[in-house]
């Protein structure tokens, strides 16, 4: 058996698209990509959304998602071109020789069946193991992946384990039939940073111990640098650069790769607090209706005019709840909120129109925050009309001014949201918030759903607008790199409490409390060996304690 496992030559992939205002037609989404993979090696496929990386990954199983078809080229696995194989042979390949780990394990596990049943299924169906052998192997994998109660966790249903645990179960599912190749498709993207590091370590150890080869697909270069031997950078279905991990990270040749490596290069000078804060949250405690559990506990923060307060935390830390309390969507149980010198009524419905106008919000999902049947002009024009009564030509002129401000221009005024890219949609949402001439905007994970380069553009725009409009941002995010880029002050939240609060330089300087330390050290760094360093460091610390 040779060392060569995968050989992809001139792979072309197409799809049929159904644009809103035109006839359905075929497009090519991958334009002739070639790569090789030896047994036991890991190749990272990296690129932004639309680069075709998932599509290429799935082509090693001769699978096209939705209307996607492989239109040309060769995919050789274990010495045969799988694009020429028949149904039964293809089924033996899928789940036998090549397996798949998807981004969302929560959605990829059948909710109606116990976990272990789904894990052993492929191995048993392909007659690789008997049922009892496969179950034994699953327990072994659970143990290897660091899951709690490895003997019995498989008997649980998917909803009975946490997201990070389920992602590890998905890895066990992929490794159970002893495949030659595993396709990891963004396996840690949906996880919190502190969970991501555990899963990443588990995956890396499992790859090493089982000697399986892997295609590791992600948009996060810092993550892929930790696990792969080679990296292929993709953009819009073309190979940009293909080389060893060391070369791509430390000596990128192409401009696009350089941009990916140096992303988050925004430099933001921290501003000094003013004597009068714009927003003052004092001793705020809140809980959701019908629960007996405080999701916010005695929160105190301040935001100064024209500045940015970043609220950082993992999912469930209460950061979005804080935004809901400030906007009045969830009235607080205790404490008070002062805005621009006056106390805000807890219930949103009781607030004055001025209060509503001066406090605007931008959301994570720009596409669901806009009415798909309204044009960009209507969307941005609505607050102008509602708050200022502006109509007709004057309104149109103001809309165009706003479009200029968000660097899009007047050509977009009659477009519909469906015709915009993700970044452009978020820009329209920013313009809509700005149209109300607010003193403060709450930005709830506004860059989380965007590709890194696009997100960078949005952050730069937000900073520029802050200079011009003197608007304050309450910036909610789980991403510490974003925080470093734009914050003036930072509040770290954990289980409903602010565990660390102060100016950016104070919060990001040691000595750290345990949680902030964990959070900061979990952010992947763009260098080889970072993962091992962190893990070694943590082991040392826990041994020292």
């Amino acid at each position, binding site marked *: 058996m040779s060392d060569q496992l995968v050989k992809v030559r001139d792979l072309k992939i197409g799809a049929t698209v159904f644009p809103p205002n035109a006839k359905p037609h075929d497009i090519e989404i991958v334009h002739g990509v070639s790569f090789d993979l030896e047994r036991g090696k890991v190749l990272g496929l990296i690129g932004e959304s639309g680069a075709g990386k998932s599509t290429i990954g*799935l082509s090693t*199983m001769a*699978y096209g*998602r939705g209307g996607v078809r492989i239109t040309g080229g060769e995919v050789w696995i274990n010495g045969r071109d799988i694009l020429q194989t028949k149904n039964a042979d*293809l*089924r*033996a*390949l*899928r*789940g*036998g020789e090549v*397996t*798949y780990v*998807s981004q*969302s394990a929560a*959605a*990829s*596990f*059948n*909710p*109606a*069946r116990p976990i272990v049943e*789904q894990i052993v*299924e*492929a191995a048993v*169906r*392909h007659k690789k193991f008997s049922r009892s052998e496969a179950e034994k192997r699953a327990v072994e994998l659970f143990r290897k992946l660091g899951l709690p109660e490895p003997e019995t966790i498989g008997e*649980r*249903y998917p*909803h*009975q384990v946490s997201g990070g645990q389920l992602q590890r179960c998905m890895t066990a*599912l992929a490794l159970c039939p002893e495949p030659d190749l595993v396709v990891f498709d963004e396996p840690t993207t949906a996880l919190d940073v502190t969970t991501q590091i555990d899963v990443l370590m588990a995956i890396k150890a499992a790859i090493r111990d089982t000697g399986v080869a892997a295609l590791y697909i992600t948009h996060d270069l810092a993550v892929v640098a930790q696990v792969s031997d080679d990296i292929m950078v993709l953009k819009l279905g073309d190979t940009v650069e293909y080389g060893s991990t060391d070369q791509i990270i430390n000596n990128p040749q192409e401009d696009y790769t350089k941009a990916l490596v140096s992303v988050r290069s925004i430099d933001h000078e921290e501003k000094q607090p003013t004597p009068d804060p714009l927003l003052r949250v004092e001793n705020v405690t809140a809980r959701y209706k019908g629960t007996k559990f405080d999701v916010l506990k005695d929160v105190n923060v301040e935001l100064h005019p024209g500045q940015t307060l970043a609220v950082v935390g993992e999912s469930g830390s209460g950061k979005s709840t804080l935004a809901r309390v400030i906007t009045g969507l969830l009235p607080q149980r205790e404490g008070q909120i002062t805005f621009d010198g006056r106390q805000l009524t807890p219930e949103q419905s009781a607030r004055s129109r001025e209060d509503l106008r001066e406090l605007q919000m931008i959301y994570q999902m720009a596409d669901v925050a806009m009415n798909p049947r309204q044009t960009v002009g209507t969307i941005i024009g609505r607050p102008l009309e509602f708050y200022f009564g502006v109509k007709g030509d004057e309104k149109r002129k103001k809309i165009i001014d706003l479009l200029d401000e968000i660097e899009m221009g007047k050509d977009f005024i009659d477009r519909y949201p469906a015709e915009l890219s993700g970044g452009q949609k978020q820009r329209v949402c920013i313009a809509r918030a700005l149209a109300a001439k607010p003193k403060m905007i709450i930005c709830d994970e506004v860059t989380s759903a965007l590709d890194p380069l696009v997100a960078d553009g949005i952050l730069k725009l937000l900073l520029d607008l802050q200079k011009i409009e003197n608007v304050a941002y309450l910036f909610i995010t789980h991403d510490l790199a974003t925080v470093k880029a734009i914050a003036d002050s930072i509040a770290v939240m954990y289980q409903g409490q602010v565990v660390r609060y102060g100016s950016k330089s104070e919060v990001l300087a040691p000595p750290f409390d345990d949680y902030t330390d964990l959070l900061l050290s979990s952010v992947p760094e763009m260098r080889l060996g970072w993962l091992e360093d962190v893990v070694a460091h943590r082991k040392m610390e826990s041994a020292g304690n």
Partner: protein
Amino acid sequence: MNLALKLVAQRLALGIILLLLVSVLIFTGTLILPGDVAQSILGQSATPEALANLREELGLNEPAVARYFDWLGGLLTGDLGTALTNGQDIASSLGTRLKNTLFLAFWAAMVSVPLAIFLGLVAVRFRDRWPDKLISGLTLSTISIPEFLIGYVLMYFVGVKLGWAPTVSTIYDSMTLVEKLNAIALPVTVLTLVVLAHMMRMTRAAILNVMQSPYIETAELKGLTMFIIIWRHAFPNSVAPIVNVVMLNLAYLVVGVVVVEVVFTYPGMGQYLVDHVSKRDLPVVQACGLIFAAVYIGLNMIADIVSILSNPRLRHPK
């Protein structure tokens, strides 16, 4: 398990309350109908004295509320009263009829439910290809033709021309099961054809809905065959909507078989009800109405409970 048990108990309680409400409705409904039971028994030529005597005898002079509770108490102890027309005990004559109707409905369900679900699975497997279109077309045409027409056509071709099954479905207690099944072969076929389309199309739609889920892709990428994917991964997640439609159709099988029973002169509830409605025999109508209501409520309650229990989140809480 606690939450699921609580929900199931809730459904049961709701079902019982609903049944009580229906009994009130049926009672008042027959009460406000024009005319008078005593009058209809004795006929137009009855003397006022005779009417007054009979009213007294039947307890019609009691207040309505008292009569209702009297009736309800009787129901709970299995006493449905006596038929006005022939003076027979309703419970005993209804008993055999109900048994016959349930017998017919049971066998119709035994054929139609598995067949509908199987056809639904086949339609999903060959989605938008000829088997799917054929199944959809055939079931739609059988549901579109009135059941009495299908009944007579089958009677003529299968019963008379081919002689495979009797055209009159009379059954006795002394018949063996095989003889009984042979006797009801044609009505069962007609009922199956009538309820098939609804259940099959709901199965198809419910499973297709689930087929978009990422876990179906996971199953496909395990290299499983399409039928195993549909059966093991899609079907368990679409049980709730399917059970609802199945139960509605079962209720129809029990309650709505009047026409089919008449066509095949089958001694079931339907024909019994029709006979007594035409004679204004109110106690019988009330009893039949209540039984039909109980069947409907009971089956829908079962559907609700199965839906609750089919949800793994409720069955296995964190």
